[in-house]
């Protein structure tokens, strides 16, 4: 295929990728901030699709996820090539394979931290219950400390590192900022302590990894600025190699924050998770069967990828395209040799 048509075939993939991300997140945003519909006698009667899509949580969630997707893709791909470079494959392909995605990810990371900061303030404003879980704020008040780590045990914060007035400062730029605590949530829809701990720790993991990746991005910028070549520093390459896995962890932690942080609701204010879940039996059976199936498929993928790698190393790139028997190409090659 000619280079430019080849290039243009990628454009719809990018556009539909963005469209898909935004649509999925719009649905999730709506679960957090339901809007654009009227319920009459337990039935949804009027729907305004645009208000449904562009709900209050839409913009920050969609932007946050889109940037996260670029970070994950960037650091994961760069990580793969960093491993290659560490194993001594210094060709142009490996250097570019690391440098291009890493550059994208390094540019996106500071933007993401800024968007994440805005998002957290929006959550504090329109989803106070989730924010209270994120920061483990038990009682409403001012001078709310920022807690790092720790857990909520019997309604009390334990084992956390406290930064005095930190949460109030981050939310309203002043220690006097009032933050609503978990006590404001009616008891019947207040999530249990362990869920709050989960949300809080997931948030810490996400933010912690975010700042670590910011550090890595700055390191990359400094190395590039000083040498103007793709960095070969072994510790830097090791860090890039690890960054791929870390971004995936951060992404999952972020989803735990928004999903577990919404409990006990599936659609806030309208539908409790316990009412949303199917009453048909066999849920566990189906769930376990799905897990087993994907474990097998996952293991198969891993095996096949290793196989591909070995074959590629041996320089045999010919596809074994004939199932259940030797390929015609090989047969004729054999005849030629014989």
């Amino acid at each position: 295929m000619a280079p430019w048509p080849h290039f243009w075939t990628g454009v719809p993939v990018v556009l539909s990728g963005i469209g898909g991300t935004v649509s999925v997140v719009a649905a999730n945003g709506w679960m957090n901030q339901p809007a654009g519909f009227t319920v009459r006698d337990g039935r949804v009667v009027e729907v305004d699709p645009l208000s449904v899509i562009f709900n209050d949580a839409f913009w920050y969630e969609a932007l946050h996820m889109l940037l996260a997707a670029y970070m994950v893709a960037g650091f994961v791909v760069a990580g793969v090539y960093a491993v290659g470079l560490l194993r001594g494959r210094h060709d142009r392909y490996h250097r570019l394979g690391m440098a291009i995605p890493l550059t994208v990810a390094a540019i996106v990371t500071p933007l993401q931290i800024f968007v994440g900061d805005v998002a957290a303030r929006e959550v504090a404003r329109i989803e106070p219950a989730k924010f209270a879980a994120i920061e483990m704020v038990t009682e409403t008040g001012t001078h709310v400390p920022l807690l790092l780590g720790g857990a909520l045990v019997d309604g009390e914060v334990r084992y956390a590192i406290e930064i005095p007035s930190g949460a109030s400062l981050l939310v309203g730029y002043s220690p006097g900022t009032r933050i609503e605590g978990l006590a404001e949530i009616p008891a019947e829809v207040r999530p249990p302590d362990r869920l709050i701990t989960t949300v809080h720790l997931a948030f810490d993991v996400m933010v912690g990894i975010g700042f670590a990746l910011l550090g890595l991005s700055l390191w990359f910028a400094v190395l590039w600025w000083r040498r103007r070549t793709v960095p070969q520093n072994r510790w830097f390459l090791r860090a890039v190699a690890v960054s791929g896995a870390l971004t995936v962890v951060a992404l999952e932690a972020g989803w735990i924050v928004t999903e577990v942080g919404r409990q006990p609701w599936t659609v806030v204010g309208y539908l409790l998770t316990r009412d949303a879940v199917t009453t048909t039996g066999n849920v566990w059976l189906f769930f376990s069967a799905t897990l087993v199936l994907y474990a097998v498929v996952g293991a198969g993928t891993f095996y096949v990828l290793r196989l591909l790698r070995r074959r590629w190393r041996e320089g045999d790139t010919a596809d074994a395209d004939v199932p259940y028997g030797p390929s015609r190409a090989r047969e004729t090659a054999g005849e030629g040799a014989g």
Partner: protein
Amino acid sequence: MSTFAAVVLFVGVVAYAVLGGADYGAGFWDLTAGGAEHGREPRHLVDQSLAPVWEANHVWLIFCLVMLWTGFPGAFAAIMTTLYVPLGLAALGIVVRGSGFAFRKVVVKTEQQRVVGAAFAASSVLSPFFLGTVAGGIASGRVPVGGHGDAVTSWINPTSLLGGVLAVLTCAFTASVFLSAEARRRDEPDLERWFRLRARVTAVVTGAVALAGIAILRTDAPRLFHGLLSRSLVLVVVSGMCGLGALLLVDRAAPRLIQGLAVGAVAAIVVGWGVAQYPYLLGTHLSIDQAAAPTSTLVALTVVAVAAVLLVVPSMALLFALQQRGRLEV
């Protein structure tokens, strides 16, 4: 409005029956192709002609599901909570099938190819069978409006079993016609004969089962039976004629014409089912109108669906054109 949305949904069903059907059917012939040495050539053709398109064909299933749960959420919930067993098994088959097909292209040892290939081929038969039982359960009115119908008899019943068997047979029929045309295009007369013979056999068997099915429907799903023989009679006849035409012309006419006849046979009978069931979505108790989402949702959904069809159909046409011209070989 709700009728239009239902028609768009049904367009997706027909497209999946034809394209997904040909896709599943190729797996059927893969399964029945015999031992490693004997079945090598047919499997090679299946592999070559399926590789570029097999994912695209299943876009229609997603299209149908989205149309159903957005446009007719009540019916979706009723179908899912009742027919979850065959739907779950069909989904299992779809996943196993995709993985098996993808893995087979990579592994080299014959035993490994046999395992993943068998997984691909067996699930190619199981998935359409279970989807056929789902269609039978819906058509014979075994899905109650409130859902949570009988998890067993809703899909293990005469109409469902007929639906399942017919689904597998029509898949095999379409695929054998397509593959024999493909073999002719590739100038492989042995292979062409191999698939042509199978096209003939499946055409006869499908016709026989369909005729026997009339008796089954008469006792088990009388409303569907009357609908098929009155309002949908034209379509049933068209389907039969197309099938017969394909059977008679398979070694004479141009590949394109035979393919058209095979598609016509399958599409006409599926449309016939839809027409016979109209205006009901579930059996004779939930009408399209009652099941529909609020109008604004239907408008938005229909706009998006039509846009999707306008985007997807030309791209798929291009994909198939490139594939049939043999431009997608690796």
